[in-house]
């Protein structure tokens, strides 16, 4: 940004603001240190409490939780739900974003708005809305029906991240030119989507997928209200019985979240990722 430099001579005429500058950096370090303490200490305490007993250092909490069969089944349940959600969300978002970019650019603000709404609708309200709306349909009468509702809610919750990520990716590749090229080679819509659009948006889709994954793994409200054997409710139940194991599990889930976010940053390399909030 070195376009307008005529301010520099004037700035040099002003007594160089050296003293405040030093103070600025000092203040910055102070605030950073305080915030870092507040944000890191609870994590350290958690790690500490998971590896100590009155008798000393131990990794028992970890070995026990990893050996616990319910841990595996609950984790796989949430993992499966996340995969299903990501698949459905991708199938809904990618063609829609593609179609909007290509044919209906006027609708883009509307879609954008609709995909941000789930960020502000508390999952609690969404869940009760679903229960109310599907009241006395097959969806609320059976465990499978509740599962469908949960996945539906998850897909909705994934939209903000999925859509923004895909839409941003869509703006960086020339969708129109790619489409025309594919069409002039005789490709139909199915082939264009599958062989041209998806591969070009893979990074964006992965980006959205990792956020979705970490959110669903930590998700508590929807699954507990719909009585689903998900990962987070299991963690809370466990904390009443085996506090140390539950803490170990909390650390494992934190590490998994960390890995997902790291993956996004590595894949996205510097591209700004969407704000992340979930699992309130």
């Amino acid at each position, binding site marked *: *940004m070195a376009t307008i430099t005529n*301010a520099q001579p*004037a700035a040099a005429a002003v007594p160089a603001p050296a003293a405040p*500058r030093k103070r*600025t*950096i000092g203040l*910055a*370090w102070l*605030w*950073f240190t305080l*915030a870092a303490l*507040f*944000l890191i200490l609870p994590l350290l*305490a*958690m790690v*500490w*409490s*998971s590896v100590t007993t009155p008798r000393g250092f131990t990794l028992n909490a970890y070995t026990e939780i990893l050996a616990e069969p319910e841990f595996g089944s609950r984790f796989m349940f949430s993992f499966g739900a996340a995969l299903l959600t990501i698949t459905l969300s991708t199938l*809904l*978002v990618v*063609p*829609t974003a593609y*179609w909007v970019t290509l*044919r*209906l650019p006027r609708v883009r603000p509307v*879609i954008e708005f609709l995909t941000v709404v789930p960020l*502000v*609708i508390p999952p*609690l*309200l*969404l869940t*009760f*809305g679903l229960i*109310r*709306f*599907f009241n006395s349909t097959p969806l609320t009468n059976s465990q499978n029906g509740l599962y469908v509702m949960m996945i*539906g809610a998850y*897909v*909705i919750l994934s939209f903000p991240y999925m859509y923004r990520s895909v839409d941003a990716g869509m703006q960086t590749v020339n969708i129109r030119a790619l489409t*025309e090229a594919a*069409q*002039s080679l005789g490709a*139909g819509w199915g082939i264009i989507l599958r062989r041209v659009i998806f591969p070009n948006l893979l990074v964006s889709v992965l980006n959205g997928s990792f956020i979705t994954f*970490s959110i669903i793994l*930590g998700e*508590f*409200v929807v699954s507990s*209200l719909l009585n689903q054997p998900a990962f*987070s409710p299991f*963690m*809370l139940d466990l*904390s009443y019985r085996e506090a140390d194991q*539950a803490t170990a*599990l909390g650390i494992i*889930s934190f590490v998994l*979240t960390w890995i997902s976010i790291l993956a996004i940053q590595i894949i996205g390399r510097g591209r700004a990722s969407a704000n*992340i*909030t979930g*699992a*309130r």
Partner: protein
Amino acid sequence: MTTIAPPQTPAPPALVRTFRRPAFNIDWLGLLPFFAFIAAFLFFPAFSIVQRALTDSTGTITFGNLGGLTNPVIVQAYRSSVIVSLITAFSGVVFGGLLSWAITLGGLPRWLSNSVLSFCGVAANFAGIPLVFAFSALLGRLGLVNQLLRPTGVFIDPQTWLYSMAGLCIVYTYFQIPLMVLIMTPALAGLRKEWREAAENLGATQGQYWRYVAFPILLPSLLGATALLFANAFSTYATTQALLGAMAQTFAVTIVIANQFRTDTFGDPTLGYTLAFSMMIVIGITIAMYTYSRRIAERWLRRAE
């Protein structure tokens, strides 16, 4: 704009049309799956809460259900929810804002700023059950702080400082700060160097620059962030439930709502839906404020370009 004629003979799965007729066109059908999904899993469910809250058992429209909200238990829960949300919105804005300032304008090394941003991405997401474990490990009866303080004889009572309203504020602040950093960093990074230079050339001190230039520009962003953080705290459920267990219901509206639907307690679904409706209004107002102030903030930044 007359009759809806069959779209001009569908040209062979044609080249991309570069112009469109303004009338209804078949392209809209491509959005059907998405809109159908949104309708089934977002719009109608939200609408059905409103509908249920505003009708009586015979289906006629009434505001009578809203009377249930004056129940002392609910008033108490609302009061606590609002207080905690306000306090943590402010603490998040202040501390998160300062951290955000430190990593953008404070002159910290670049790698450190980037690490803070990455960490905030994770930490804003680190809410709910594991967060409560972390704070129990820190401030609990046998937590790190009390273990370290034991030689001094000081005891931080978790009943006062953790499993209480103060505890809620402390724990919520943990995810409010990173969220604030994520929201505020772009705004702070958008402050032009030229503005500061212009102010300094006109003889402004550091304090004057912040008071008369930077602060007014940032004000809409700050207000928007406050609104968003308020909504964020107000709709928290998992953290509250995990921290306070059976006591949670006096502290948060969300818990009271959820309890109305439990089969094992004497819940009242009508009250639950009415409460849910009232909460939708609170969140709706807050988000409207957020959207409005964001628009003003963006207008400012656009004008600057």
